[in-house]
């Protein structure tokens, strides 16, 4: 670990790191020029495949493999869509990259488009990132001036146009096909799959959707080689040959109760404990940690005794979490009530639902209502079973929803209820000493509560 040298964040501390001159002065666009001069698209795909790069957006799908899903002899156009709608709570690595080193992303974007023969690229940018918008736009303009974008790039005969599209602030737009619908000007309701975007994406044409950090990784792979990339990280576990391994550097967003919150670059496979101690400077004010969110709120929860969980693509899954997600680690210290954590996450998901599928649309808002009632001192032990049932029945894993964001809403509940059951029960008994044991259903019309009637008891 000691000899690890950050590459993705190598330049962000330089003054004016977001400008073309600084980036190129530090050796930027060398890989692009070399590729355009010497390589064919298929070589780029092969290199990315050989590097073992997996998508950094959350699902961790092998990037090179995704590119090969494009139809071979499609008359075109093929589109490239850069997912910069970073909205998973706790996640800000894309923001750092876009604000401080936009050219690194653009270089990767141009290389990826070259590899996939995309002639138009869209960058779908989160609404709440005005500085990123400004700097990305500036970077795009600079690239056009330097002839790295536009017609006949560097005399290679390859042409590419990049369009920035600013979203309208919705979590659901971060879902691959929700993003596509939103880009087309429609309601961001994720599409049913198949067909996958590689076959029918933006404007019903073949489309590659990649994350911002993935594009930055492509830049590094093309400039440093796939062997370098593969030398970082962890190989697949021996007992699971279907795992593609977790290679390369990764940006970890560390926040919550931590001494030095921030975005840190570390090799994939670093454990939560290493991250907290070596990078984060320990838990805030020397307190004891209670739990950690491994990769954005939808990935679930790790107990303190599970902090040795390696943060690679398969690690959190082995500890009952949904996955690595965006690798945004949020530390909860011992003062945090798990019921509060649950309430907060439920409120987020109930608010941000796409609202297509009833199980998720109604399930998340029902869970929120239950948690509101528990906070109001009217919880019952039976509610926990109900929450667990709701959590267990929504998502693409049981098959009851269209998109995977429903699983993300379920996992915090699943993990909290299984890993912190005792605390949840204790909270309910403490806040509702007279009624926690009731098991009869409450007549809805009498017992229904609305938000204004709530007074939280603490």
């Amino acid at each position, binding site marked *: 670990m000691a000899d690890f040298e950050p590459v993705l964040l190598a330049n962000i501390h330089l003054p004016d790191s977001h400008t073309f001159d600084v980036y190129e002065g530090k050796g930027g666009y060398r890989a692009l020029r070399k590729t355009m001069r010497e390589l064919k698209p298929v070589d780029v795909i092969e290199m990315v495949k050989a590097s073992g790069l997996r998508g950094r957006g959350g699902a961790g799908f092998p990037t090179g493999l995704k590119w090969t899903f494009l139809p071979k002899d499609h008359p075109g156009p093929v589109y490239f869509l850069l997912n910069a709608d970073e909205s998973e709570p706790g996640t800000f690595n894309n923001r750092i990259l876009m604000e401080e080193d936009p050219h690194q992303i653009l270089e990767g974007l141009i290389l990826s488009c070259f590899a996939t023969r995309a002639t138009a690229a869209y960058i779908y940018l989160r609404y709440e990132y005005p500085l990123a918008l400004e700097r990305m736009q500036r970077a795009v303009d600079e690239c056009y001036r330097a002839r790295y974008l536009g017609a006949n790039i560097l005399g290679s005969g390859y042409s590419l146009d990049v369009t920035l599209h600013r979203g309208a602030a919705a979590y659901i737009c971060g879902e691959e096909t929700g993003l596509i619908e939103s880009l087309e000007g429609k309601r961001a*309701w994720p599409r049913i799959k198949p067909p996958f975007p590689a076959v029918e994406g933006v404007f019903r044409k073949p489309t590659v959707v990649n994350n911002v950090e993935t594009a930055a990784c492509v830049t590094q792979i093309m400039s440093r080689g796939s062997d370098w990339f593969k030398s970082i990280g962890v190989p697949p576990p021996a007992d699971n040959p279907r795992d593609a391994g977790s290679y390369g550097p990764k940006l970890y967003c560390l926040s919550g109760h931590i001494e030095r919150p921030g975005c840190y670059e570390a090799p994939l496979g670093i454990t939560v404990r290493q991250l907290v101690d070596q990078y984060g400077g320990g838990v805030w004010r020397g307190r004891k940690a209670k739990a950690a969110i491994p990769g954005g709120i939808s990935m679930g929860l790790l107990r303190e005794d599970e902090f040795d969980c390696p943060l690679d693509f398969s690690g959190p899954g082995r500890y009952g979490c949904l996955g690595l997600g965006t690798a945004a680690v949020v530390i909860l210290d011992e003062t945090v009530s798990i019921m509060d954590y649950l309430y907060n996450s439920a409120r987020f998901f109930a608010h941000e639902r796409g*609202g297509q599928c009833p199980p998720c649309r109604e399930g998340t808002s029902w869970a929120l209502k239950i948690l509101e009632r528990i906070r109001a001192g009217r919880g019952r032990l039976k509610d926990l079973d109900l929450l667990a049932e709701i959590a267990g029945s929504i998502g693409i894993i049981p098959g009851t929803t269209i998109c995977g964001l429903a699983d993300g809403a379920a996992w915090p509940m699943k993990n909290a209820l299984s890993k912190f059951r005792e605390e949840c029960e204790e909270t309910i008994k403490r806040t509702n000493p007279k009624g926690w044991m009731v098991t009869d*259903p409450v007549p809805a019309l009498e017992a*229904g509560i609305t938000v204004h009637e709530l007074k939280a008891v603490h």
Partner: protein
Amino acid sequence: MATVIVDGQEVELPSGSALNGIQVAKQLGIEVPHYCWHPGLTVVASCRMCLVETGRRDPATGQITMMGKLSPACQTPATDGTVFVTNSEKVRAARAMVEEDLLIRHPVDCPICDKAGECHLQDYHFEHGRDQRRADIRPFTSRRRPVGDTVTLFVDRCVMCTRCVRFTREITGTSELMVINRGSHEEIDVFPGYPLANKLSGNVVDLCPVGALGDVDFLYQQRVWFMKRQPHVCAGCATGCSIFVEENQDRVYRLKPRENAAVNQWWMCDEGRYGFAHLHSPDRMTSPRRRGDSGWADVEWSQLVVELDQQLRAAGRFAVVLSPHLTVEEAYLLACYARSVDAQALIALGPVPTEGTDETFPQGFTISAEKCPNRQGVAAIVQHFQGSLLEFAELPARMAAEGVRSLWVSGGYKTDWPATAAIDFGSELRLLIVQDLFASPLWEQATFQLPGAAFAERAGSYVNRHDRLQSFAWAIRPPAGVMVEGQLYWRLLGRPGLYQAREVLHEVARELLYFAAASEPIAETGVDLKVLQLAK
């Protein structure tokens, strides 16, 4: 040939059939509940009610591998070797969950909801839902807001299947309806100032699987379980949509489209749907009258039949006008009668009302400019008897030339007689018999006024603009005092008993080559008269 297995039963599908799980199960009589899927709209698979277990049978080994998770049947194509399980524990649990979710905020105001009795939410909940409510959330009330002149929205009853939204985008191409807000606050709405105002708007009410979209015309008029559905054909225009007339005690409450792939798919236009008010208009003529020396006198139908026959036979040359509102059978009977009175009787086609031009929607549904149901059929009858098509406009001249002394005009127009001014049939005319629904200048000229029947009261067949003949029985009885045209002509011809449309159609099919295909039993969706003609 594709073999699909549904709940252990094998179904053979012809190759090239593109069916989904719901459709294949239906062939076996298994209903897979669904809200958002509709055969006429795109698949969104969002309601999750049709979740089933799916799998695949290996063609070589016969080994069946099931998928671990549930899949929507609407989105799963039934290809060779596909396995559907629609009744497992897992599937039933998923249905119960979706039903429970949909009812969390539903007002459950069935006692005051028009949809009660034909509501999918009600039916599915009865069959698949839980018997006890667990959510202690106060349900919404039935907030209501109009989305157009014809349709009103009960916001909280909605289950967000988005069928109505897709209908306005895909079928009418007008896109008035949309979804606003997010998550559990989603609602169907229109943009301010852009109400649901297209000519097919009433269909969204049929599409709505719950009571969210209400038909303003039908609202609170009748409980659905009191009504009987009678298959019929719309008489609004030459498209001839297959419909159901929904009536209770001889009163029509609403018309609904009846699926017919060859004519109207699943839809009908608002003009046809709401165009039945004239059936129960207080202005309808209900007693046959004779003009005498001392003014008008009511006549009994039995006496009238005798009198008409006597007077017509005494009058000399005879002409009849066959209205395009008559059924094929009625037109044939009247023409036969005319020729029995006068072997050279003139037989003309009545005025054909037209309005504007044909209007075709993106998916092919057409509203015809010709606002009568049976011009095609009646014209064929006229041509058969007359040798050529004698139009109404040519009739006065022909009558004068041939010295016609008596004229029978059949009507059935739901508005005024199309030629509103009094028509001059020459001073030679001694006997004018007018048969119509409403009074008109022509009606006032008549010697005999015969109240006629409206479309829902008739039995017989219409031939639409594309030569498709559809047969139907009467849906309601005519108002007291009215004798349906078919019955009157039947009696004038001296045939015993009641008018038998089927018998007459057999005769027509024997006599007229154009109708030859109608000799076979007529399917519910009708028969294409062109098919046999081409073959011959």
